[in-house]
């Protein structure tokens, strides 16, 4: 991976409202996010010539937006899709095939209005034949099984997982757009009902209505735009399995592929990262991802996240919006970690005290899709 990339993120935004939005459909939320992100960049719908989306097929989104992109990418690897799209968009921009890439995603996950056609399994699919008949509660059960194995193998504890939920809530308390902002303690998490052992309710993400969009262009073009450009220094993507019963090793995921690839391409080291946004569909998702990416050794994630280290004021600011656990999580969360990372690097929150990670220059975004199946890692920077 030696080619130079000059791609930058120039606009990011959520839909007008996020949380419980019972009067808006999925595509409408995506439309709002698109317009808001373009406005953030100082661009128009007509400037978009590359479309990257997952959930709906690209032509569905293009039709709704009224654009005629000449580059599509509908790569759908679950919640990590949008992080993966970052790299794909950068490749298309670097090749000179497009000028302005739009990545858009999100859904009416809670109100379930106008959801994309189901991409779930059929009775004859591999999940339908070899998992569904046993009553595994969907993503929840798959991640719970992975977590149980991690606990068995490395002694990871419920208290350590709870630290992740508590830190997310502390960040959310600083974010007016976060869905859950009331104080939370480790004891509260441990007292929440067990739903699929070893997961308790507060180990699980929210289910909300929300969409987000990210606009990219070349560094040259970005110089004339409104926002401080955020460079995409490196990216990686990785796959491991699709259904959880096929996971070669339940205690690790494809972050062990995408993480190192992203770091190698960016030419930076783990200790250089100022702020990290790591997909948190479940508390455990964060813990195993941090190990896979290489912030700590396999099995040491529990210690890594403990002692308030990832909370506001800690030395490893993580999921500074409140994440999927406390800020928002419509179903596929991956667009939102990108948005938050870009805002932190631009210094959008400088007048909001601890909400802004002081002097953040280098950020990491990591998305996890499916059942720890496919990941995307990206490293972003401001000069």
């Amino acid at each position: 991976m030696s080619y130079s990339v000059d791609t930058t993120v120039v606009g990011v935004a959520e839909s007008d409202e996020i949380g419980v939005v019972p009067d808006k459909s999925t595509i409408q939320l995506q439309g709002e996010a698109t317009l808001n992100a373009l406005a953030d960049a100082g661009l128009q719908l007509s400037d978009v010539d590359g479309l990257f989306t997952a959930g709906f097929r690209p032509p569905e989104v293009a039709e709704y937006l009224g654009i005629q992109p000449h580059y599509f990418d509908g790569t759908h690897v679950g919640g990590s899709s949008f992080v993966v799209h970052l790299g794909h968009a950068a490749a298309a921009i670097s090749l000179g095939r497009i000028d302005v890439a739009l990545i858009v995603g999100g859904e009416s996950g809670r109100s379930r209005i106008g959801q994309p056609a189901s991409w779930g399994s059929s009775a004859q699919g591999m999940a339908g034949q070899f998992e569904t008949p046993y009553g595994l509660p969907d993503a929840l059960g798959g991640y719970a099984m992975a977590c149980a194995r991690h606990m068995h193998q490395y002694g990871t504890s419920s208290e350590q997982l709870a630290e992740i939920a508590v830190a997310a809530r502390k960040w959310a308390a600083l974010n007016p757009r976060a869905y859950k902002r009331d104080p939370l303690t480790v004891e509260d998490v441990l007292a929440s009902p067990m739903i699929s052992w070893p997961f308790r309710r507060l180990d699980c993400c929210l289910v909300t209505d929300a969409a987000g969009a990210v606009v990219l262009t070349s560094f040259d073009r970005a110089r004339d735009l409104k926002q401080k450009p955020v460079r995409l220094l490196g990216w990686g993507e990785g796959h491991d399995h699709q259904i959880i019963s096929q996971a070669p090793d339940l205690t690790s995921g494809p972050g062990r592929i995408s993480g190192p690839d992203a770091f190698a391409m960016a030419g930076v080291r783990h200790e250089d990262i100022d702020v990290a946004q790591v997909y948190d569909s479940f508390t455990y998702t964060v813990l195993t991802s941090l190990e896979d990416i290489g912030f700590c050794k396999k099995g040491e994630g529990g210690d890594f996240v403990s002692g308030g280290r990832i909370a506001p004021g800690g030395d490893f600011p993580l999921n500074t919006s409140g994440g999927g656990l406390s800020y928002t999580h419509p179903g596929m969360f991956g667009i939102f970690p990108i948005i938050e990372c870009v805002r932190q690097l631009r210094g959008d929150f400088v007048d909001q005290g601890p909400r802004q990670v002081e002097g953040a220059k280098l950020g990491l975004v990591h998305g996890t899709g499916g059942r720890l199946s496919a990941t995307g890692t990206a490293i972003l920077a401001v000069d």
Partner: protein
Amino acid sequence: MTDYLKPLPKFDPVTAPFWESLRRGKAEVQCCDDCKSFVFYPRALCPSCGSRNLVWTPVSGKGQIYSLTIVTPGRGPGAFKSDSPYVVALVELEEGCRMMSNIVDVAANPEDVKIGMSVEIVYDRVTEDITLPKFRPVTPVKPKGSRRGFAMAIMALGSIAISFAGVLVRSIEDADSWQINFYRALSHITAIMLILILQYRGKTLSRIRGVGRPGILGGLMLAGAGISYLQSITHTTVANTLFLLSAIPFFTALLAWLVVNERLRRKTLITMLVAAAGVAVILADGFGIGSAYGNLMGLLAALCFSGFAVIVRKYRDVEMMPTLVVSSVIILFVSLAARYNDLVISPKDVLLCFIWGAILAGFANWVFIIASRYLIAAEATLFMMLEFSLGPIWVWMFIGEIPTEMTVIGGIMVIGAVAWHSLLQLQTVKRGTVTVDPVPPVQVVKANGTTEANF
């Protein structure tokens, strides 16, 4: 066999031999003729080396639990809810490949079923065509027999205790139903609060505030049930009231079908018709002899209670104890509104109301909640029938209250139908697959609608 409501696998040409081997009761898995690795799920190529030479090979059916999750009561997709708690596991076969399955014949509890445990295949013939591979511990795990036995014992004690409520009402001298309601609710609140404070200490009030809309709705339903129950029992025989209440499981099934679109099974429908006929006999008899009001109130009590059970199903984690507090507070205020200027009753009546509200109902509710964690729904229903059968016997023995012949016939029809249905259910539930709630931090009513009815 059409009663199997859970998702079934649909074979394809490559996977069919696997499913057929299970149907024969001798599991086969593909083995790669080139790299000798076992391949699961079945494929057209070996994912380890790319070879097409995969040979169907018998496997021992023995292996170890690689990982697992335990789906807690009231959860799980669709029809699996009624099995919860249950274990979903990844089993690593001796031959080296892994498959998802359920672990059966063991309590669904993280203390009893563990990663690394040796398991062996059991063939679960769920339909004519499909046999699912399930696994059980090679060395039987001694089920929490003592706990189950203990649960059964306290459940029986609780049922017997609360079955004396009828005798108690008949022993009250002058107090009218609103005055009884007032003192009974007051003592019930006291008892439940005491238990809650012991359990939650400083967090008691926030627990009660935390019941939310489902708790308020549930509390309203329970209050309605409690008030109409007393109206019923003071206007007709104890037998009439209790026999009508016995139909609760069927009202619940019916309401769940109407309100939350739960499927009605054919077996349930048939026994339900018998029970309905029993209810009709009691009601018709009541109209004939002028105790229609008492009977209708009994019916209303049963409906309200079923409404509560459906709310529990819809919202899943309704916390029972705080909801009982809500309902008793409602009863307290309603009876206060009815008799605010006339609350003086004889000390003996006050004492009886306190025995009922605090000791009988308080104790019964508490043990039922504890026991429901270890017993399955059908068993709990059977204990409920014990209460409804014993009640009329006690008033006959101690008070000399004799129900009409038709009431007894109707009662036998209802209780018989419920008991028969529960026994059938017990037969179909595999032993040991449904017992213990894994580390329940919060008491949750079994979300299958057979929550105990006791007032």
